[in-house]
């Protein structure tokens, strides 16, 4: 299960926060834990370089893209390897929508599109689509090209 997908800006403010199967009372804890993890480790990290952590049998893969840091949390079958696949899909979709690694402003400008991409990629905790070109078409309700 992919437990959470979280986007934060460089100051640690949340831009997107989507949880699956995480009780409401634990969400705040996860939010602050992830943001702190980013603050401790993400300084100076190159775009899309993946970092990884594991906390209470839960895996976390996170990275930076432009002004935005992205965190993906999973457990069981979604271990660090599967999550790195998930975050790869997310970063490429976001880059595709924004045309480049986004500034915070650009990210917020494209907010609706990014939400649609996330909806295509992670659905209630399961990975659904993995190709950015297909996702790009799907969010416009166009069938995939190979079909």
């Amino acid at each position: 299960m992919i437990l959470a997908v979280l986007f934060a800006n460089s100051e640690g403010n949340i831009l997107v926060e989507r949880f699956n199967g995480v009780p409401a009372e634990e969400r705040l804890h996860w939010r602050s834990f992830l943001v702190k993890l980013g603050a401790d480790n993400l300084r100076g990290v190159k775009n899309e370089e993946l970092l990884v952590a594991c906390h209470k049998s839960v895996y976390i893969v996170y990275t930076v893209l432009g002004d935005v840091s992205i965190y993906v949390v999973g457990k069981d079958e979604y271990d660090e390897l599967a999550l790195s696949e998930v975050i790869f899909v997310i970063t490429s979709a976001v880059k595709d929508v924004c045309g480049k690694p986004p500034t915070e402003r650009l990210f917020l400008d494209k907010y609706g599109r990014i939400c649609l991409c996330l909806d295509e990629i992670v659905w209630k905790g399961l990975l659904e689509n993995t190709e950015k070109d297909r996702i790009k078409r799907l969010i416009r309700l166009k069938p995939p090209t190979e079909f």
Partner: protein
Amino acid sequence: MAQPLVKKDDDRDDEEYSPFLGIEKGAVLQEARVFNDPQLDARRCSQVITKLLYLLNQGETFTKVEATEVFFSVTKLFQSRDIGLRRMVYLIIKELSPSADEVIIVTSSLMKDMNSKTDMYRANAIRVLCRITDGTLLTQIERYLKQAIVDKNPVVASAALVSGIHLLQTNPEIVKRWSNEVQEAVQSRAALVQFHALALLHQIRQNDRLAVSKLVTSLTRGTVRSPLAQCLLIRYTSQVIRESGNAQAGDRPFYDYLEACLRHKAEMVILEAARAITELHGVTPRELTPAITVLQLFLSSSKPVLRFAAVAMTHPVPVTNCNIDMESLISDQNRSIATLAITTLLKTGNESSVDRLMKQITNFMSDIADEFKIVVVEAIRSLCLKFPLKFRALMNFLSNILREEGGFEYKKAIVDSIVILIRDIPDAKESGLLHLCEFIEDCEFTYLSTQILHFLGIEGPKTSDPSKYIRYIYNRVHLENATVRASAVSTLAKFGAMVDSLKPRVFILLRRCLFDSDDEVRDRATLYLNTLGGDGSVVETDNDVKDFLFGSLDVPLVNLETSLKNYEASEEPFDINSVPKEVKSQPLAEKKAQSKKPTGLGAPPTGPASTVAAYETLLSSIPEFSNFGKLFKSSAPVELTEPETEYAVNVVKHIFDSHVVFQYNCTNTIPEQLLEDVIVVVDASEAEEFSEVASRSLRSLPYDTPGQTFLAFEKPEGVPAVGKFTNLLRFIVKEVDPTTGEAEEDGVEDEYQLEDLEVVAADYILKVPVFNFKNAWDSMGADFERVDEYGLGPRENLTEAVNAVINLLGMQPCEGTEVVASNSRSHTCVLSGVYIGNVKVLVRLLFGIDSSSKEVAMKLTVRSEDGAVSDAIHEIVASG
């Protein structure tokens, strides 16, 4: 929203301005009224939906009324032909997750979309419907979903399959009917469809071993189109291997497939295969080699995720070849990898590497967050228990980090570790207690201070010089808050009660506490002074008084708490005898949730000693068993039923000097039944030395709430009598109405056959470790040494023979000698234990295996404090 004036060429300002600046829920909800306009402005509607999404994604919640209002307006947007807006509508409906009575509004629109000629409408409508649907609606749309699974468009098929995975949780019966379609989808040419279909098919069939095995066999031979599906297949394959239990070296099924995956082009697949190989049961070095080679490569990969995965995989096996690669990872930029590398090294390293590792860890601790520090502390705790001779270095490390900055959880983990070390390693006691004393001199956590004071009260008086702790304790009375002061008073009193020479001086201190500003502190001091005989004379405190003040309450705390809550203030004082002593059975879920980790101070420790204490309390609360004397040993629970049967029963054997009590833990797994008057009927005709003396039935056993029934047997005193018992569960079953949860008046008597139970020689030996076997062996002396040689017959390998003997004797392996180096032809294993009658026993086993015939020979040397016991051990082996 008012737009600030921004010059177009002023990029900087432009960057800083957020489109959601000053966004406010109320205003957005107002804006959502545009959804009701007769002339829909698709662009504007999309913008408003984006704002709603932004609010939801920030963790904002809508009240029921707000959500309903937005939901109803959103449904109007189905009228629009704008494709972008339609996509947004699908998303926002899922996010709003309307309640069952509202769903009906959109059902017809979605059903229409589900049959639309536009594929993408179909896919999205499926996803939305499955998100908001309930069982009744599902049966209506089932036909369409089955069609969708085999749809030509991969997006539609995937949408239906992933929906199936979700729906399987809520409506398994319906989804299981789709297995033919899902089976077809597994053969799909579209990579993702195959991935999703494989996951769903496995979930549908996971309880059918044969079907899973067939699935794996056919797919490992066929084509798997995506790395993700390949990873799933590897996992299912290892499951099949595990369940087939065929550990024959050389012809392990599917090994070739796993090995071939090590050469796959996707790193994810390679690592998954390597993990599967390292986790194989009884893996041989030859099988392991290719996996180790790829793991070593990944340990030095440039990608942190791969390094991390490789380190994590070396956890289950002592892959010492990787240790050198791993030591370089302690300085890894990514602190999580460094933490994992350290903890792995601590687990797999040997005694000689401890000091070197500790040095490296010290440099590294300041760099990581508390959460990871806790992991390191826990690893050090288990390391110390593994190599007790190294306790000085490890205890010093713990005390050093205890002085540094850190949050409550981290400090608690350290304190817990020190406490466990003090409990388990006698030599560590004095230094450990002093470290704790120093810590409470400057401790900001009331909880930890009180817990440490309590612990000091128990352990301190038993040390060689109890007086040195008094200063630390009395300082608390001056410097701390009322809670800590009260604890300190109790601890002082304990010293006074236990150490007669300190009594007069402790009383002086206690008298000073009579002037404390807090009621509780004064009350405690008064109570102790009066009951302990505050006249200052050096007299031994009466045992009854000690029991009253410091003994256990004799009633379960939960029961006491409930009784106190129910007590209404009146003329009649609260009577502790009115508190029920029976331990109320815990719901199953709660039991499962209990942590398996050893706990230090807080809860009663879950280690073996404390389990015995818990059993002791339980048994002594039952009048029939209260005169059996001291409990010698309680076995681990023995299952008497297969997993997943109607009733789950296991039994714990409690051994007393001249009695044996069977505690049957029963769980009723059928929601529609209530069992009453549950008892186990035992036939002891194959246990001649035992005669049944008492029994205690279980009055009621509701669904999923375990309960216990007991049977007691008398046996000759001090004799390790053995025998076999057949068990039959007898009860009255009553039907329960699942809607109301009420049981019917009348029940029917019924029986349920359980597995047989044996009392064996090992039940009379306690596993008690010694920390320096050689010292213990030498000091025991050869007075009652008995030596003999035995042939154990042909065995697969030495490990099997060693485990068999350890299990037969039920003794504690010492110094890690239960682990046999692979392929070795001889092995020495040392065991220690306490035989019934409290006689210490040490055993040295020397094994040898013949490389061709696989015959194992064993030399058994026993030393004990009693010749008869040494003989008895030989007898156990000879008859086993």
